[in-house]
């Protein structure tokens, strides 16, 4: 098991720059999520860690050793592919034993090891079956078996649940997380599903256009996004953005939003011009007394909660509130924003302005 460190890694495909100088550290035993929309460079980053692509520049350390230009076969890692990539001409047992055979492990020992792994994954009864006829879940288990049988330094998984249907994903993601907790192996997991990332990950890296936007524990990233992209990508519905013009400076504690004074965490950065105020839907409360006004234009019932959409002079605001509260379309009301949770972004760069509330998170990422 090992720490993985990525330093200034860059990857170009011809003239296309897939990953721009990225750095982050994955601690020993962490379940680490690489999250981002398709084409953001997350899979390329993972493949560079695994040795399936070689970085154009930069260093990759696995367990303290620089492996950036080493082939995959020499890195002692395991990879779970989205399409599983089980060897179609071998049966289940042979598939699982294949990484051991390459090390020249004696047959009796291989057998014992495969039986052990099959026991853990609950696939003992299908060891002699060809992989062709297996269900999605069983294929997934065999692919995991092939990965864990060798006890590698790290596991890399490229959207391993992407090929399963929704119902089964839920179940498999629990199984996967339980397996990780049991083995304690460093795991890097690529996904485009922010919910999956938050559910399963100890830490998350959010990537976009080949750039690491933010990296940290799920709650920090959710509460204190470093960029507008992260704020929008994580959470459903995503963070509300209220665009306005104004000037803020070090020590500012309120902003003026169309005449209404909104309290914000004390700022440490200054900026003037186009700004964006970001607020999560669950941090907006409807209150007739509030100065900032809006009109209800839609409600969405979601069981325990409902999403209420209001039109304000700075754009639409979605509010998450308990579903027993009665809200009617066309109603005009005030919006109370929870001061402790607000983030101000510079509209031109998309970066969050540092405040006393998010300082620790932003400095860390």
């Amino acid at each position, binding site marked *: 098991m090992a720490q993985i460190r990525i330093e200034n890694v860059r990857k170009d495909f011809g003239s296309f720059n897939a990953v721009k100088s990225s750095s982050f550290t994955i601690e020993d035993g962490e379940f680490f999520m690489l999250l981002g929309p398709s084409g953001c460079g997350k899979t390329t980053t993972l493949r560079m860690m*695994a*040795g*399936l692509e070689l970085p154009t520049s930069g260093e990759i350390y696995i367990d303290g050793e620089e492996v950036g230009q080493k*082939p*995959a*076969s020499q890195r002692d*890692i*395991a*990879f779970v*592919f989205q*399409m599983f*990539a*089980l*060897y*179609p*001409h071998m049966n289940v047992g042979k598939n699982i034993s*294949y*990484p051991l055979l*390459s*090390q020249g492990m004696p047959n009796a020992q291989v057998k014992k090891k495969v039986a052990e792994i099959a026991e853990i994954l609950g696939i003992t009864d299908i060891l002699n079956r060809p992989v062709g006829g297996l269900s999605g879940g069983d294929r997934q288990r065999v692919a995991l078996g*092939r990965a864990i049988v*060798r006890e590698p330094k790290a596991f890399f998984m490229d959207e391993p649940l992407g090929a399963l249907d929704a119902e089964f994903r839920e179940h498999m993601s629990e199984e996967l997380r339980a397996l990780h907790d049991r083995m304690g192996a460093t795991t890097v997991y690529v996904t485009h599903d922010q919910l999956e990332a938050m559910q399963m990950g100890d830490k998350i890296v959010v990537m976009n256009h080949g750039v690491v936007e933010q990296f940290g524990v799920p709650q920090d990233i959710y509460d204190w996004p470093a960029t507008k992209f992260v704020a929008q990508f994580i959470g459903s519905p995503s963070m509300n953005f209220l665009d306005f013009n104004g000037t803020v400076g070090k020590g500012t504690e309120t902003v003026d939003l169309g005449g209404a004074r909104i309290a914000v965490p004390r700022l440490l950065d200054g900026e003037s011009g186009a700004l964006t105020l970001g607020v999560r839907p669950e941090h907006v409360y409807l209150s007739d007394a509030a100065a900032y006004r809006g009109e209800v234009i839609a409600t969405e019932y979601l069981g325990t909660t409902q999403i209420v959409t209001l039109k304000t002079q700075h754009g639409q605001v979605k509010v998450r509130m308990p579903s027993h509260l009665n809200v009617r379309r066309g109603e005009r009301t005030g919006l109370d924003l929870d001061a402790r949770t607000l983030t101000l972004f510079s509209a031109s760069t998309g970066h969050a302005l540092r405040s006393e509330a998010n300082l620790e998170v932003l400095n860390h990422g």
Partner: protein
Amino acid sequence: MSFSVTEPSLRTKWFAGFLVIGYAIITLIPLVWIIATGFKSPADSIAYPPVVVFEPTLEGYVNLFTDRTRATEQMLEDAGPPTTWYEQIARDRGTVISGPSRYGERFLNSVIIGFGSTALCMILGTMAAYAFSRFKVPLKDDLLFFILSTRMMPPIAVAIPIFLMFRNLGLNDTHLGMILLYTAVNLSLSVWLLKGFIDEIPIEYEEAALIDGYTRFQAFYKVVLPQAATGIASTAIFCLIFAWNEYAFAVLLTSGNAQTAPPFIPTIIGVAGKDWPAVAAGATIFLVPVMVFTILLRKHLLRGITFGAVRK
């Protein structure tokens, strides 16, 4: 397993069956006729109107495999009574067997050259196809087109330069020369066909093998080759059929040593009158290896021909 949405009507089925059987008959008649002629007597083989029902004899086969001389009284006396069934057949025609013919040798040459060039072609073809399919080869498209362009004229168009080249290199009338020649001709076809098959194999399988601790070459022959078996088998059949049947280069470049069966079979005619049964017997035996090879690989061949049409 049925892919049709609606069951075809009885009339359609009859019509389809009729068409298939009709086509089979048309293509099989020459084959049946060759096989039958091999068992006819020389008189029956040229009878007009042609005989369909005849008394079978192995005379054609005996004539194919032996050299015979017209028997004189003295020779018959020296040889004594015939001891084997094939001597008996020769005697009935007033000849004695003077030794084996060269058909066996020629047939063996065909086997060595045909299968040798097919094997070489498969080895080189799969490796080249794999490289074209997986690696960034500089000028890949131009190279592939160049390879294909070698088949844009009939191979025999370059017969004279090849003849001169072979003479200078000492490859005339050698097995090696013929194997190299047929390999060169077939290689473009095999590279193109095999590249198509290998393109269809997801690259993740090899990547999985690389991760599992195997080298690139091990991944190639342990993971890619077994999955390309279908493509390799069907490509091998095409290569073998060409090399096996090739006539023009064999006439031009081989004579005493490495001559294959196709240029030899017509020479049987001239030995003693028009010996059609012996020619037919030679052709029949010549058909067998390709037939057996094709039947053995036919499961792969069917999959191979329709590959890419249906995802597994």
